[in-house]
C-alpha cells in the first residue's frame, strides 16, 4: 500500500537564507588563518627535525659535457638537500624547443669545502647518467671546513704499518682513535678555557691593582713587589699549562686518516680533526634514530664552531636561560608590588584608572623603544657612572658601561613589567569579595589578609602572568641587539670563577643566534640547517611556556568556580 508523501516545502530548494555565501566567505577567513598557522609550524617542525636526521649520501655519474662537473671528474658525491624546478631568470616564450617545459634539478650538499671551495652544487636531472648509494662512502664531521665525503683508504699510525680499509682492524681502530682524540680535546679545552682562563683573569686583576698602586710608588713599594712576584708566578704557571696544551695538540695531529674523494683527490686528515664519522648508506633505521638523537644532543650541549654554522648552540641556549631567569627575578617583585598597590591600596578614581590604561598600553609599546631606553639609561648612564666610581682603573675599557647580561635582563624586565602588572591585577580582582571580608571579620589586618588569603588565591594568575612575561622576554631580539647580545661570547655569564655570576659579560641568545646566522653568516645556505634547528628550539621553548600559561589559567578557572562560596 503506497502512500504518497507530500513533498514538504521545508525540504525544497526555494528556502535559501540570505547571504549564505558570505558566511562561507567568512569561514574561509578562519580556515585560511588556521591553515597558515598549522603549515607554518609544520614547516618549522619538519625542517628543524630534518636537520638532525642522517640522510643517505649519493654518488652521481655525470654525462659527458655536464656543467656540473668539478675538475673534469665524472663523479660527484653528496647529500641531496633540495629538489626543485629549474628557475630561469628570463622565461622566453617566443618559441624554442624546450620553452615552457619545466626541468628538475637537485641541490647537492658536497661537503669537502677545503678542496672544492663550495658547499653546494645544483645538478640538472638531464646531466645524470647513473646514481649509486655505495656502502663504503664515509661522512666525516671535522673540526674545520665542515663535513667531508669520501672513501676511506688507509689509516696512518705513527710507528706502525698503515692499516688498509679492507682489513678487519680498520674500523675498530678508527673508532678507538676518534674516542682518544675526543678525550684529548676535552683535556685541551679544560686546560685552555678553564685553567688558563682562570690565570688570565687573575693576571688581569693584578694588572689593574698594579695600575692603582703605581700612582704612589713610594708608599706601595712592598705591595708592588708582592704583585710583581705574583705576576711572575702566574706567568710561569701559564707557561707550563700552555706547553702542556701545545703538547696535547701535537698529539692530536700524529695519526691520520687517508680517504679518496668521489672526484678522485686523496686527502690526508689528521685524526685530531675528526669529530665524528659514519657510513650514511650502511645505517638501518635504528642506527638512524640513534644518530638523530646523538646529533640533537650535540646541538643542545656543545659550543659552536666555524662561525656558528657547526657544532652546537649551548651558549645561546644557556644565555637565553640565564637572561630569562634574571629577568623574572627582577620583574616579579616589582610587578606584583605595583599591582597590589593599584588594586588593594590606591583609591580607585580617575587617576588610578588612567594609570591603569597607561600601564596597559605600555605593553603595546614597541620593544625597540625599551631597547633604546636600556641603552641610554642603563648602559650609558648607570653603567657609565658605575664604571667611573668603581672600575676607574680599567677605563677607558668599559666594564658595566657597555652592553651586558645584567642590563639586558633589566631592559626586558621593564618590557615585561606591564604584562605582570596586568595579569596580577586581574588575578587579585578575581578573588571573591567574600573571602577578603571573611578574613577581615576574623580580625586579620589588611596586610595579613593580603599575604595569607588574597595572594595565595591569586597565585596561579600571577604565575600565568610571569610565564607569559618569560615567553615574551625569551622571544624578543630587537632590544637585546642594543644592550649586550653578541654573535659569539667567549665566556658564559655564569662559570666556576669567582664571583661566579658575571653580570657585566656579554652573552649569546637563541633569537639573535637565528638573526645572525641567517643574515650575517658568510655562507647562509650552509647555515640554514642550524637556523632551522635553532628556530625549532626557540619556538618549542615559547610554545611550551605559553601552553603552560594556558593550562595554569584553566586550572585556576576551575578552582575559582569551585571555591566560590
Amino acid at each position, binding site marked *: 500500500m503506497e502512500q504518497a508523501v507530500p513533498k514538504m516545502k521545508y525540504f525544497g530548494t526555494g528556502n535559501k537564507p540570505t547571504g549564505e555565501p558570505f558566511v562561507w566567505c567568512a569561514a574561509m577567513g578562519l580556515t585560511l588563518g588556521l591553515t597558515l598557522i598549522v603549515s607554518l609550524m609544520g614547516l618549522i617542525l619538519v625542517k628543524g627535525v630534518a636537520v638532525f636526521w642522517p640522510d643517505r649520501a649519493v654518488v652521481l655519474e655525470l654525462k659527458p659535457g655536464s656543467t656540473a662537473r668539478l675538475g673534469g671528474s665524472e663523479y660527484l658525491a653528496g647529500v641531496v638537500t633540495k629538489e626543485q624546478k629549474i628557475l630561469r631568470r628570463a622565461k622566453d616564450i617566443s618559441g624554442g624547443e624546450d620553452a615552457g617545459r619545466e626541468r628538475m634539478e637537485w641541490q647537492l650538499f658536497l661537503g669537502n669545502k677545503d678542496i672544492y671551495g663550495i658547499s653546494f652544487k645544483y645538478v640538472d636531472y638531464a646531466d645524470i647518467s647513473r646514481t649509486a648509494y655505495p656502502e663504503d662512502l664515509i661522512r666525516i664531521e671535522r673540526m674545520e671546513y665542515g663535513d667531508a665525503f669520501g672513501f676511506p683508504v688507509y689509516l696512518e699510525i705513527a710507528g706502525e704499518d698503515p692499516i688498509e680499509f679492507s682489513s678487519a682492524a680498520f674500523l675498530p681502530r678508527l673508532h678507538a682513535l676518534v674516542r682518544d682524540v675526543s678525550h684529548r680535546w676535552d683535556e685541551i679545552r679544560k686546560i685552555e678555557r678553564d685553567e688558563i682562563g682562570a690565570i688570565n683573569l687573575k693576571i688581569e686583576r693584578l694588572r689593574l691593582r698594579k695600575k692603582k698602586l703605581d700612582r704612589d710608588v713610594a708608599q706601595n713599594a712592598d705591595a708592588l713587589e708582592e704583585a710583581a712576584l705574583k705576576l711572575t708566578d702566574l706567568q710561569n704557571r701559564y707557561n707550563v699549562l700552555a706547553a702542556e696544551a701545545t703538547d696535547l695538540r701535537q698529539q692530536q695531529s700524529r695519526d691520520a686518516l687517508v680517504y679518496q674523494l668521489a672526484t678522485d683527490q686523496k686527502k690526508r686528515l689528521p685524526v685530531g680533526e675528526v669529530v665524528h664519522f659514519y657510513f650514511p648508506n650502511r645505517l638501518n633505521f635504528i642506527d638512524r634514530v640513534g644518530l638523530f638523537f646523538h646529533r640533537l644532543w650535540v646541538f643542545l650541549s656543545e659550543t659552536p664552531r666555524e662561525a656558528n654554522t657547526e657544532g652546537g648552540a649551548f651558549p645561546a641556549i644557556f644565555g637565553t636561560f640565564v637572561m630569562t631567569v634574571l629577568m623574572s627575578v627582577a620583574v616579579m617583585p616589582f610587578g606584583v608590588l605595583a599591582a597590589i598597590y593599584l588594586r588593594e591600596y590606591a583609591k580607585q578614581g580617575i587617576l588610578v584608572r588612567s594609570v591603569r590604561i597607561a600601564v596597559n598600553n605600555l605593553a603595546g609599546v614597541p620593544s625597540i623603544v625599551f631597547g633604546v631606553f636600556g641603552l641610554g639609561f642603563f648602559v650609558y648612564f648607570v653603567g657609565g657612572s658605575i664604571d667611573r666610581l668603581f672600575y676607574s682603573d680599567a677605563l677607558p675599557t668599559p666594564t658595566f658601561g657597555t652592553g651586558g647580561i645584567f642590563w639586558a635582563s633589566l631592559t626586558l624586565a621593564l618590557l615585561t*613589567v606591564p604584562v605582570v602588572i596586568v595579569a596580577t591585577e586581574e588575578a587579585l580582582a578575581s578573588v571573591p569579595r567574600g573571602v577578603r571580608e571573611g578574613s577581615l571579620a576574623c580580625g586579620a589586618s589588611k596586610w595579613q589578609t593580603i599575604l595569607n588569603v588574597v595572594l595565595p588565591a591569586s597565585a596561579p594568575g600571577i604565575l600565568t602572568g610571569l610565564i607569559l612575561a618569560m615567553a615574551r622576554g625569551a622571544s624578543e631580539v630587537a632590544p637585546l641587539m642594543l644592550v649586550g647580545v653578541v654573535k659569539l661570547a667567549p665566556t658564559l655569564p655564569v662559570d666556576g670563577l669567582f664571583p661566579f655570576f658575571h653580570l657585566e659579560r656579554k652573552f649569546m641568545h637563541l633569537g639573535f643566534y637565528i638573526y645572525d646566522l641567517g643574515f650575517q653568516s658568510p655562507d647562509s645556505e650552509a647555515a640554514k640547517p642550524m637556523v632551522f634547528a635553532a628556530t625549532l628550539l626557540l619556538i618549542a621553548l615559547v610554545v611550551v611556556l605559553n601552553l603552560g600559561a594556558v593550562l595554569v589559567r584553566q586550572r585556576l578557572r576551575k578552582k575559582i568556580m569551585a571555591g566560590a562560596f
Partner: protein
Amino acid sequence: MTAQSRFQTAASTLFLDRFMTRFIAVGGISVIAAVLGIFLFIAWQTLPLFQGAKIRRASSVALPEGDYAVLGADEWGELPFVVDHAGAISFIDLVGNREVISVYPGRELNKDITAFYYNRIKQEIIYGTSDGHFFITGIHFRPFYEANSRRIDVKTETGPLMRIGLEGVPVERITYGAGNNKMLVAALQTRAGKAVIHTTTLVKEASLFGAGQFITATRFEITQTFSSEPSGILVNSQGDGIVISTAEGKIYYFAESGGKLKLHQVFEPFDDTADREISSMDYLLGEVSVVLTNPQGINRIFSLYVPAGNIERVFGPTKEFRALDGPAAFYSASLRNKAFLIGRDNLASLRYGTTEVVRWEERLPFRIRHAVVGGKYDRLFFLDWENQLHIYMLSDPHPETSYRAFFGKLWYEGYTEPAYEWQSTGGTDDFEQKLSLVPLIIGTLKGTFFAMLFALPMAILGALYTSQFAHPRFKLLVKPMMEIMASLPSVVLGFLAALWLAPLIEARVPSILLMVILILGSSFLFGAFWTSLDMRHRKWIRPGYEWIALIPVLFVASWVGWQLGPLLEKVLFVTTDPNTGLRIADFRLWWPEVTGASFEQRNSLVVGFMMAFAVIPIIFTISEDSLSNVPRALTSGSLALGASRWQTAIGVVLPTAFPGIFSAVMVGLGRAVGETMIVVMATGNTPVMDMNIFSGMRTLSANVAVELPEAPYLGTLYRSLFLGATVLFVMTFTVNTIAEIIRQRLREKYKTV
C-alpha cells in the same frame, strides 16, 4: 591576660600593617613612575636637538695699536692672529703669557704689498705686490707639550715669488683656491682706468720623490665679459671655478672645462629686491654655496646644482635668511659644518646654511670689525674698532638639526629641489648628515598598511565566523591556536620571510595574485553552490562546521592558483627584450617596465604577509571578544524576526561591536608600527618614499635597530635615533590609548543593554 588585652591587636601586627601600607604605596608608585618615566627619559635625550647655540663671554684682550685687515685663528683657538694693512702678522697667545709674536712675510723679497687674502682652509695668506707678483705664506700651527700641558707653536713659511697678470702693475685684489695638486689664483688690476682680472692655474710638478713645486700651467684674462666693475672674487679649492660679483649686482660663474675657463652662468641674485647691489659674497664650507647680502641686509644662499634638463651645475637660489639691518660687514664660515657668522656694527648672527636656521643672534656691547669662528666650532672671536679682541665660548653640539631638518623638506647642497631624506653616514669628509624622519615614518606606515591589507580581512572575517557562525566547541581550539600564533617570535617570522618566503614567491607573483583571487572566489562560489543544493544534501555539513568543509576547497584553490600562475604570466605579463627582440614572460621585468617602480626580492608583499602573522592574533582575539559580547537578546531578537544569520551578523552584531573591532584594529596597528625584526630581516632597509608593493622600505624601528649600536654616545645621530624612538612611542601610545578608551566605553554600553 585580661579580657580586653585578648582582643587587642598585637603591636607588631599593627606596625607591620602600617609599614606594609607605606611600603607598598611608595614601592608601587615608584615602579609605575619608573615605567612611565621611560618616555620622559627618551624624550629628554632629544631636547638638545632643538636648542640653539649658547654663547658665553670668555675674555677680552687689548691688541697693540694698528689697523688690522684680517682676523684669523688656529684650530685650537689658542693663538689667534691679526694681519695689518702692510701684511704683517701678529699672533696673540691667549693661554700662555708669550708676548705678541710678529712676523713680516716676504720682507726679504723687498716688495711692496698691495693686497692679500687669508685662506682659512689651507691656513695660508697670499700676498699681491705693487709690481704684479704674488707669493704665498703658510702658517703652521703645531701643538707641543711643556710641563704636562699642551701649547701651540707657530711657524710661517714663505713660498717663491710668481708673476700674475700685468707686469709692473699693482695687484689691487688677489684671491686663490688650492687643493693638493692644483691651485687657481685670480688677481684684479687696473689697466687704463679699467679693472681687469687675470687668473693663473698652477699644478704640482710630478716628481719621483712625491711633493713637488707648484708650476704655472695656464693663464687667462677674463675681463671682457663684465658689463661693470668687478667687486668680489671667489675661487674654489678644486681650482676649477671662479665666482665674480660686479658693482651693479651681477654674478659671473666661470668653470674650467677642457683646460679652459668658460663662463657658465650670469645671474642677478637680488633682481627682485629694491636694492640690487651685492654687498658681500662668501663661500660656505664645501664651496658649493655662496652666502650673499645686499645693502638692505637681505641674506641669501645660492647653491650649485644640476637643474632638470641641464647637464652642467649652475647656481640657483636655495635659502633666504632673516634680513640684517644693513649690508654685512664681516663674515666667517665654520670649518666643521655649514654654519656661518655674519653681521654688522654690534649685531652678530650665527646661521646654519642647510637648515636655514639662525642658531644665535645678539647685539654685543661693542662695534665689531672682524669676526672668526673657531676651527673646532667651539669659539667665536670678535675684533672691535678699538682693537679689543673678544673671545666667546660657543656651545652648539647639534647645529645641523632643527624641527625642519627632521620633519620638513630641506634643500641639501647639490640637490635639484628640497627633499625629505634620511642618510646618516656617507663616504666622504664633506658629507652632510640628512636626518629627515619623514621617509622612515612613511616606511613605517607603508609596512603597516600592507600588513593590515593581509591581516584585516583574515582576522575580522575569522572573528566574525568564530563568534557568530561556528560551533561553540571550536572556540576551545581556535583561541589557544591564536595565542600560539601571537607568541611566535618575530625573529622567526623575519627569518622565514627573508630566507624562505621571499625566494619562493619572487618568481611566482602571478601565482600569488591568482591564489588570492581564487581562494576568496572559491569560498564564495562554493558557498553559493552549496546553498543552492537541496536540503537533503545541505544537511551533510552542519551549520558551524563550514570551515572544515572549506579546507579541501582551500587546498584545491591554492594548488590551482600556484600552477596556473605561470600561464597567467604568459598571457598578461609579457615584455619584449629591446636587444634581442625576444618576448619574455616575467613579472619581475614587466612590473618595472609598466609602472616604472622597482621590483625587489625582499619587498613589502613579503613583509606585509609575514607581519600579518604577528598582527592577526591580536585583531582576531579582541574583535572576537567584542563580537561575542554582543548581548544575546539582540541577536535572538533579530533571528526571531526572520533575519537570516548573515543578516543578523551584518545588521545587528557588527554595528554593535564596531567600536570593539575598531579598537582591535588600532591595537593591531600599534603592533605593526613597532614591529622590528621582520622588517630588518625581510626588507632591503632602504629609506624610500613610495608605496610600491614590490619594493622595500625602512621603518622607524628598523632604523633604530640598525643604526643605534654604531651611533656615538650623545652625538647628533644618537639623539636623532632617540627622536625616532620618541616618535614611535608617541604613535603607538596614542593609537593604543584611543583603542583602550573606545573599548572601555563599549564595556559601559553593554552593561546598560
